């Protein structure tokens, strides 16, 4: 919980700093400039900013889940030590690799679209998505594996958290795949007139990197405990 508080303080702090420090001390009633135009005009695409704000929200979500995980493990006051450690299935290592590949393909696609290599970008996007679907399949397999373990009982918080954390992460990837599918259709070679998907691919890439980062964090937490 305190980790989350620290995160939120940090996030707000960065926001305040990035947005305001320049203008923070401006005296707006004095600053009737020539032609009256201020100089902090926004210049980024709204979707890009929207995504970053969204990532902040998702970070808060995962940070809170992880804080809950930590406190439930028995680090909080008065907690009961009934945590029965879970042997994470080995397939998670394979899954991690798949997600890294997915992220790398996205990056490759993004690099190509900026160079105007639409066909390659399309391939990269497609492969990235397929790796992601493979990752999700692998996660489902891991769910089945855990089901077979001795430690499997809903009462065991280690098991419950394993399912909840992977499910929430997987749902975020599914949301990403929705945008991915839309982008793929827009970039389809059968479309008569091409649509500019540079921004979509860029945002997908950012989102994939972010979810990879989250997964590595989650995986490390699961392995470490």
């Amino acid at each position: 919980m305190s980790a989350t508080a620290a995160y939120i303080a940090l996030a707000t702090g960065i926001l305040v700093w990035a947005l305001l420090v320049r203008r923070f001390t401006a005296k707006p009633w004095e600053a009737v400039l020539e032609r009256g135009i201020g100089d902090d005009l926004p210049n980024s695409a709204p979707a890009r900013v929207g995504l970053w704000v969204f990532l902040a929200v998702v970070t808060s979500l995962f940070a809170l889940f992880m804080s809950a995980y930590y406190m439930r493990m028995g680090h909080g006051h008065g907690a009961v030590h009934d945590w029965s450690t879970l042997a994470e299935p080995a397939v998670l290592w394979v899954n991690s690799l798949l997600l890294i590949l997915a992220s790398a393909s996205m990056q490759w696609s993004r690099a190509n679209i900026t160079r105007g290599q639409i066909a390659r970008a399309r391939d990269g996007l497609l492969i990235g998505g397929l790796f992601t679907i493979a990752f999700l399949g692998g996660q489902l397999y891991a769910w089945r594996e855990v089901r077979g373990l001795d430690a499997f009982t809903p009462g065991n918080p280690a098991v419950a958290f394993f399912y909840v954390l992977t499910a929430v992460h997987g749902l975020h990837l599914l949301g990403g795949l929705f945008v991915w599918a839309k982008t793929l259709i827009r970039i389809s070679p059968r479309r008569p007139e091409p649509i500019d998907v540079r921004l979509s691919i860029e945002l997908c890439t950012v989102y994939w990197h972010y979810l990879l980062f989250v997964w590595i964090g989650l995986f490390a937490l699961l392995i470490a405990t």
Partner: protein
Amino acid sequence: MALAVALIVLVLGTVLFHFLSPWWFTPIASNWEMMDETVQVTFWVTGIVFVAVNLFLAYAILRYRTGRGGKAHYEPENKKLEWWLTIGTSVGIAAMLAPGLAVWARFVTVPEGAAVVEVLGQQWNWSYRFPGEDGKLGTTDARLISLDNPFGMNAADTAGHDDILVASPELHLPINEPVKLLLRAKDVNHQFAVPQFRVKMDMVPGMVTYFWLTPTRTGQFDALCEQLCGMAHFAMRGRVVVDEQDTFKAWLAQQPTYANTREVTAGDPSVGEALFAPCTACHGAQAQGNRELNAPKLSGQAAWYLVRQLQDFKNGVRGAHEGDVYGKQMIPFASMLADDAAIRNVVAHIARLPDQEPETTVFGDVEKGRKHYRTCSSCHGVDGKGIWATHAPRLSNMSDWYLARQLQNFQKGIRGSHPRDFYGSQMAQMADVLADDKAINDLIGYVDTL
């Protein structure tokens, strides 16, 4: 204009109300006068700010309302003024915070050698546990809780065998002796609060919380639950009696230890059969009840409930009210049972008797009754079979005319008004929910279908 006047009147009215209010802290009965003092300090600081800000606001409205010829003054900010206000506010805040933290430092430090008492909360009453001679409380586990072990004592832990169990909502404490109250809950969150003590704390299932105090005044104080704990939260009542040392010791000596409660033998029905003979005159040979003689059916009723009622009749807790005509008749019969063992024996005999279905004598609107019964089901169970944990007896398949009369008695205060009838007074509060005799009949009409 009217607004400025209204603000002034409200400020003066609030100050007057503050000084004339008939409601203020209850006379304190613990060592925490310091808490009252920090409240007073806070009242002074915030009161001055309240009066000053609002009177200034009223003055500003009066002085600068439109139509008085003035134009508004253009002044984006006044750094100096703002800084002074900030500093002044910070000083006021510090003046309230410092004493608060100082008192809190004492709150978190339990004095060495404080006596220990465990308060156990459950839906919807209290019980208590004192460490025995070894000064240590035995371990407990919520999973061990049962009718025979309501405290969830761990029998394997010998430290618990001499623990003194107080299975009643009334707690006695000695005066002038610091005591650390350990709080435990069986089922849901509760809070043990005695307004006269000022300090209180939630009890959370799965953990033990605590606070400490030194009682400084003898007397009886109501203990309330102040953490919403379900339907009957408002009726969860206990009592703390602060005694002189000697009285306290005498009281404590009367309470059974865990070992004592384990030694209690089950009743012997064959002995009980003979003891039951006088009862048959009214209640019938099969304890099936007799309406003409105003004797309810006993067979099928939970043993723990019959035991408690017999004890209550004997001890004058039940039947003492002058309006309780039939209850009074029961007192001499209950008194014929010499001791708790005799009571257990006779109850054991009743438990052996066949549970016949009594005839229906109360008729009401079953559908309306079903709605009323929702409230009752929290304690007596959806099926009306009674729940030992809530001290709620069986209702289904019992004498319906008797249930109706008892509800009326509860409403009129004929039953449940004795100061030591804790569960009865709880029922009395619940019976008040039923508006009239029609509602009672509807309810009993539904209970008859269970």
